[in-house]
């Protein structure tokens, strides 16, 4: 898992958000009002009075791509520390005060961003702004809290990576797909880095990422733009701005041949992940790639499901995911082979389907289907204030403009069968591929109680 969060509540997977970076029909259905504060923070408000609640998201443009060897996982650790006390709300107080006023919170970190989420009844609005302003400006670095939070993050790593086959294989896949660019290390960080970050590194990271001009705030729910802008003027605008993180200048070199890696561990089932390098989210090929991905992977009528799960009966599941990314990224394909099935059999079937998509254009009905799926998914994402805050923010941050959300219909309509074939040929080549396989190794399984 690349997206890791503060607590279990993180229900909204970013991969879902990405799948629904899709077709709205008309922008006036979900009007958004924006304002840029004097300190550079952009604020987007989407009013909806259907429930008396508010979802407030703050996207900071800092993630594990802004780290380096020895400091991997620091953005995510920092995400945890943002709940551990500032000047006005001391250690443990933020959560206590927020919950006592009917609010709840969470946060998640990706390779590119750190996102803070507050969900609360509208009556708690001033309190939430007071809390957010306090921690952006005056975070405290209590050595005791750092010590115990290190343990919490280590436990999170054991949960999501070390004791989870998918998490483990995912980590190895990224580490092998990239040899130059910082996307190579895991968001949660290597265990040895989790154990060794220093106070200086932590403070430096805070100063680097947590400037108002490096953040975007999205508020959806039972509020008016006027009252939000007033809150922002009072609590957020006085916060001084400083230089954002230095640009990430390293670019990944072109992959010149297939890379393969194997993980052997005790396990009942094997697992296989395949990655291909693709462009960053705001690339013009985004829409054609999403259509291709839908045709190949989404729903039980998709080509991959039909082939691997239904017809050949060699896999339990096959899926793909692409995360929003500032820099050229990868599409990850995951196949869960049945017990005893050689993962290479799944690979072979997948490559044949990919070749089919290169050799002939998709049918009119498949193209139409992909667009319909995108439309329905869009409404599923936009039906809650929480989904809206996340989607609007994701568009604003990764496409540079939330309005692209409302252009997506047009952009998808423009995708032709030839475009889909072209992106299949461009990106899905064997030389551009990394394959990670987990092979069950149960030789030393017996341990005596």
């Amino acid at each position: 898992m690349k997206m890791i969060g503060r607590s279990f509540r993180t229900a909204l997977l970013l991969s879902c958000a990405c799948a629904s970076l899709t077709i709205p029909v008309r922008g006036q259905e979900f009007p958004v009002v924006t304002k840029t504060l004097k300190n550079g923070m952009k604020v987007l408000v989407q009013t909806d009075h259907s429930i008396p609640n508010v979802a407030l998201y703050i996207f900071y443009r800092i993630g594990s791509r802004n780290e380096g060897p020895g400091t991997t996982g620091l953005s995510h650790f920092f995400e945890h520390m943002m709940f551990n006390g500032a000047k006005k709300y001391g250690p443990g107080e933020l959560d206590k005060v927020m919950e006592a006023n009917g609010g709840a919170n969470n946060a998640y970190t990706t390779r590119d961003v750190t996102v803070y989420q507050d969900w609360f009844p509208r009556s708690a609005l001033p309190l939430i702004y007071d809390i957010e302003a306090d921690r952006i400006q005056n975070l405290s670095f209590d050595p005791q809290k750092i010590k115990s939070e290190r343990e919490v993050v280590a436990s999170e790593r054991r949960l999501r990576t070390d004791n989870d086959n998918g998490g483990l294989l995912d980590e190895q896949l990224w580490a092998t797909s990239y040899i130059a660019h910082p996307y190579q290390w895991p968001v949660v960080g290597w265990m040895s880095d989790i154990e060794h970050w220093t106070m200086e590194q932590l403070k430096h990271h805070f100063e680097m990422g947590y400037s108002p001009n490096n953040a975007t705030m999205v508020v959806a729910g039972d509020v008016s733009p006027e009252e939000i802008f007033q809150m922002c003027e009072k609590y957020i605008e006085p916060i001084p701005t400083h230089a954002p993180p230095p640009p990430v200048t390293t670019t990944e070199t072109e992959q010149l041949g297939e890379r393969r890696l194997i993980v052997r561990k005790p396990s009942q089932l094997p697992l296989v992940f395949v990655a291909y390098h693709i462009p960053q989210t705001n690339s013009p090929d985004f829409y054609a790639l999403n259509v291709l991905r839908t045709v190949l992977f989404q729903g039980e009528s998709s080509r991959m499901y039909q082939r691997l799960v239904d017809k050949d009966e060699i896999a339990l599941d096959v899926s793909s995911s692409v995360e929003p990314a500032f820099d050229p990224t990868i599409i990850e394909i995951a196949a869960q082979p049945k017990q005893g099935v050689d993962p290479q059999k799944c690979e072979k079937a997948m490559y044949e389907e990919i070749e089919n998509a290169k050799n002939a254009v998709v049918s009119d009905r498949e193209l139409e289907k992909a667009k319909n799926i995108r439309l329905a998914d869009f409404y599923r994402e936009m039906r809650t204030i929480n989904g809206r805050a996340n989607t609007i923010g994701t568009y604003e941050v990764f496409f540079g403009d939330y309005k692209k959300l409302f252009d997506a219909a047009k952009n998808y309509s423009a995708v032709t069968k030839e475009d889909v074939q072209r992106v299949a040929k461009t990106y899905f080549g064997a030389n551009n591929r990394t394959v990670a396989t987990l092979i069950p190794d149960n030789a030393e399984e017996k341990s005596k109680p």
Partner: protein
Amino acid sequence: MKRARFGLHVLAVVVAVLFAACSAAAQTLHLPPHEKVVLKNGLTVLLLEKHGVPLLNVYALVKTGSAGDPAGEDGVASITAGLLRKGTKKRTAQQFAADLDYIGAAFESEAGADFSSVSAEFLTKDLALGLELFSDALLHPTFPEAEVKKLLAQSVDAVRGAKDDPQQVLGLYYDGYLYGTHPYGRPAGGDEVSLQRIQRDAIVKFYEANYAPGNTLLAVAGEFNGAEMRKKLEEVFGAWPAHTIATPTIPATAPVKSKRLLLVDKPDATQTYFAFGNVGIARTDPDRVAIRVVNTIFGGRFTSELNEALRVESGYTYGASSFFDSRKVPGPFGVFSFTKNETTVPAIDLALQVLQKFHKQGVTDEQLKSAKSYIKGQFPPNIETSRQLAQIIASHEFYGLGDDEINQLEARVDAVTPEIAKQVIQKHFPSENLVFVLIGKASAIGPAVEKYAEKRDARPISDPGFWPPEKK
């Protein structure tokens, strides 16, 4: 990656549902108006119009779940539900998938302990085809032999795969060890052995015995026109032939009156996943709102006693929580967490101390006030979508709960006093008699955890089944 994380997720969802209460201080939240119609064939139809996004949710609740599985064939209800879309009188599985995906519809069918459910969601503009697909699956499945075999084989492997991730299966071992041979002890999805025993006949028999208009509640929520919808539903579902159903009654459950511990050995685990507790409450328990308030304080939110102790203060874990999974008859109550091998005993000891302290000291006025605000403030997003609303009105109808479950929740939450909280702790939170289930590296933690119970059991996670062990 699209990898579901069931175990934990299930627990988390249960907790979330249990917290559900009413709105913020000044607001009083109500379920949107909805109506109930009983068709001539006995089908109960619930209609709730909700405008906002052009989506429609159709949800059928069939009043028999995995508790109605034939003995030794755990998983029949679940497999039956899973096969509904895999071949109908009109469509092969492939045709069904093609038609469904073409309109971007979502379709889910599953079985829980108390009931089975079938749900479809589609754009309002696709009403005719969406409803036709939904009714085709619900009313006219044909259970083709090839599809039966395929799904059974996949399900066996899915159980094996789940065992590679302890958090996915902890709840299944826990239910089994807590309830034994009672139907609530069965894994709803079956296990590696029970699934291989299931024949097509058992599935057809289960379908015919339970999928009938008189045993089904149909809830429709979303953007539609009420009069048109009623007419349409009568056309589509009015022809479903009625027949008599002998709904299996679920035997009563009672708390376990001893201590016992099951250690499931996963030799490569670097972290121990544990649950302990006892039998909890029924969905209609008169104390349910007070329990919700009290459990919020104990283990139902980030600043709960459990999470404060095991995560915030000690750093033993990423999360610790407690849940009441309330069902037709009393369902499980459990404390749940995980910690690295080395801190297994300190973490469990601490969780037990938190429970003892809770019994001794009860809750403070401040905690009570905070929990009430939290529940009321966090409730509204639980009735935000038509999907949630369809499930809620059907579930209320099934359990015999009225709209007051939500409309009066705020008042009921506010009525919980420290005295009531104290009684609830004594009555519903176990203290001495606890059932423990641990999944971890037995060679590292085995001897140390013996102290928790004199009656102990152990088995490797690679052995088929959960608990009791399957007889092959």
